[in-house]
């Protein structure tokens, strides 16, 4: 390889968990450094190169006018732009505030709201073209690695689109909905986590966002039959991907 691809990692409105997940690739981190030039990453580097990048991993949603400008600048200087985690894809948890009037939300946190300029929270795709998405809250290390490898091999990342249920079955788990009457989001949620929560007896919260073509109304009606009220169900769908076109309806748009 002639020159190592240049990687940048940015953070907008989010918790930095996705970046940490990248940092946690400890056992292969030296391999990554050998293959890529991590040229911009404020969390871990003192000197950052801002001239332009082959791959930018952008974490966090967009929630202020400044951020809108910034993401546009990043797009211009980036060849391959990745929405890194759920916040960058569709706003994720910060976007829950989109259902509260802007001023109410602001005044809950800030005493003087006159200095606050915020917009509704959207994923970066609302403002710029996105080349790939890494689902998850945080994005799963396996999918990060799959993306990096695909970049080196110059192929499309091979990420499956089926729901968590498939991975649950791989692990011989009893279905939490049928056996324990829990409101598990697994049937509409993209796989990739290895069904971590259901394997430990906890219902899927939907942190990987929607699978391809989810049947959300069918799941909502199952939740209803289990005794959950409309508010509970809305909250379920709002939590990680309420702004996504797939979940919008059940999230109460």
């Amino acid at each position, binding site marked *: 390889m002639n020159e190592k691809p240049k990687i940048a990692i940015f953070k907008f409105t989010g918790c930095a968990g996705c970046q940490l997940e990248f940092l946690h690739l400890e056992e292969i981190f030296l391999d990554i450094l050998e293959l890529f030039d991590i040229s911009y990453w404020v969390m871990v580097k003192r000197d950052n190169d801002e001239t332009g990048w082959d791959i930018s991993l952008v974490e966090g949603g967009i929630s202020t006018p400044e951020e809108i400008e910034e993401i546009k600048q990043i797009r211009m200087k980036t060849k391959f732009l990745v929405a890194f985690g759920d916040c960058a894809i569709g706003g994720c948890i910060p976007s829950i505030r989109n259902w509260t009037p802007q001023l109410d939300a602001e005044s809950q946190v800030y005493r003087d709201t006159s200095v606050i300029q915020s917009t509704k929270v959207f994923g970066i795709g609302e403002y710029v073209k996105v080349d790939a998405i890494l689902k998850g809250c945080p994005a799963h290390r396996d999918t990060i690695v799959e993306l990096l490898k695909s970049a080196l091999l110059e192929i499309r990342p091979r990420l499956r689109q*089926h729901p968590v249920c*498939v991975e649950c079955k791989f692990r011989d788990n009893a279905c939490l909905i049928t056996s324990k009457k829990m409101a598990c989001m697994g049937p509409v949620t993209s796989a990739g986590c290895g069904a971590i929560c259901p394997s430990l007896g906890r219902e899927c919260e939907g942190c990987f966002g929607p699978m391809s073509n989810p049947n959300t109304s069918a799941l909502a009606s199952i939740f209803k039959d289990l005794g959950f009220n409309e508010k509970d169900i809305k909250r379920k769908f709002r939590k990680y991907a309420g702004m996504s076109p797939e979940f919008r309806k059940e999230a109460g748009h």
Partner: protein
Amino acid sequence: MAQSHSKIVKIIAKRDLNTFVNNLIKDKKHNVVGVKTKGIKFVFGPLENASELRLDYDVTILPPKKYFLPPCETLMDFNLNKPFNVKESDVAKPRIIIGVHPYDIIALEQTDELYLDSQKDDFYKKRRDNTIIIGVDIQKVSEKSFAASMKTHVTDSGFDLMFTYLDDSYAVTIGSEKGKTLLEKYGKTKPAAESDIKKISEIRKNIALQFKKKLNVDKEQWSNVLVANYDHPIWEKRSQKCMECGSCTMVCPTCFCYDVKDEVSINLKNGSRVRTWDGCLLRDFTLIGSGEVFRDDISKRYRHRFYRKGNYLPERYGFVACVGCGRCGIACLPDIADPCDVINDLSHFERSDDTGKFFIKQKTEVAEKGVIHIPRIATIKRMEQLTEHEILFEIEFDDKEPLGHKPGQFVEVSIFGIGEAPISVSSGPGSSSSFEIVVRRVGNVTSRFFKMKPGDKLGIRGPFGNGFDVKSFEKKHLLLSAGGIGIVPMRSLIQYVVDGENRKKYKDIAILYGAKQPSEALFMEEFKDWCKIDDVKCELTVDQCVEGDCWTGCTGLITTLYAKIKLDRYDSENTIAVVIGPSIMYRYVIKCLETLGIPDENIFVSLERRMKCGVGKCGHCQINGVYVCREGPVFNYNDIKDLPEAFE
């Protein structure tokens, strides 16, 4: 005399059964697995002590298929710097599975039919040979099970030992020499008395009475009921609730479709080819490189599952591929997956006598091949960029053996680390040790081809499928119609029929070829040569010309070319028409051919689907009951024109 009576039966006391199991565990010669609890459910899992074993279970979450076809398994490992350092992976040490219910034993026997046919799956076979099955007669019937209706609640075969609960002891029916030796070595038994034998058969009779769920029709009737109701509104109605979660197929003991993909280490030095479970309810099951999805509508995928179980596999193998375990009914959230419910709902409607409608009866011969997963090494000898999107590759096996293909067949081409793709052979069969393929850049594997160079290594499996029966075309006129990339497989046929001596065996040949635009038209130089051959006529057309294109052929769709073909009634009966092109083309071209008076049985087509394994196992390429990788890709139009999924 019932068969079971001829089998040797022993009696083992309850505590001696525990000792027997503990002896097996302690001996460490086998991995001992059995039924145990997981929360409020049961699973097959490793046993550390006999006390964990729960022979009184109703049903397990997953069937024992996970021990023979694991959810995820490595087929081979490779080194990317030396791509042909391929190592087939090993299967685990011998295993004993304790507590398998009769329906699961029968499901394994059904799996054998597919996986141990003339193209054996080595991994499955090794595990099967390596495993001792200790069955147990059902003590508690699962609420959703309808095994008695499927006659799978008891079995006479498929086990090494079979336990039957008799209050303070267990009867052990010996099913094999292996089982007998095991019992003698590790267990303390006494011979069964005549009264015990009687008791066993009473118990087995009694089991049937405990099933609450029953089918309204015999299992032999599934095919008739399904075939008559292919367009019934039930499919649309029930599938509206489907979550496409794939659970029904994952938990099914007779669903054994799989997907294969390559994985590489981050430093791109090592990789492995991994097989995982796949299911026909998942949308990307039929996704091909170009992005096309067959059975895109969920109601079609939902319907497919029932037809595969109740009609497609029964027509092919003679058994209904459902054992009535009820697992899908338990796993399905909207409760639409239970075949018992669907068949009972449909049983009030019409039945059909012609159950073979969605299936081709003729058996295509399949050559016995060694290892079905491991490709042979080949080298790229020559590359020729044909158009912006297509490259021709001349490939030779490193052992210089010819491919030995028929025109129309395909190969599975591997680029290690990226994956495998089915690609048609584009050269005619001949004595040459090399063959040609043309690759269009669509998916990951095909795009990767564009970065290769002569001397690079590839893996080849095949040739696969049914090619053109060129012998049956002799003494006939040939009308060959190719659209777009369809000219690639067509070229293998053209090269054969115009070649030297072969040319005399066929009458007039007309080749019609339509491309999108002049820059995408393939093999233009060869067309010039073909035209020069006696009584070979070529007609070319492009959908459109843009300014600056140099094009002497026609413009318009391929269907406009048939006006130029003049056949009288006598001729049309003696004409063989071959059509290869994108799926949209067939309907229109075939109409033209019928207008010309060419009978349907003289028309041959080649169809594209996702041929993943090439050996009729992975399930991806099915058109109704037909495997494109085996009965196709070349079909007689008359055989498949009534298959609803063929030209949708």
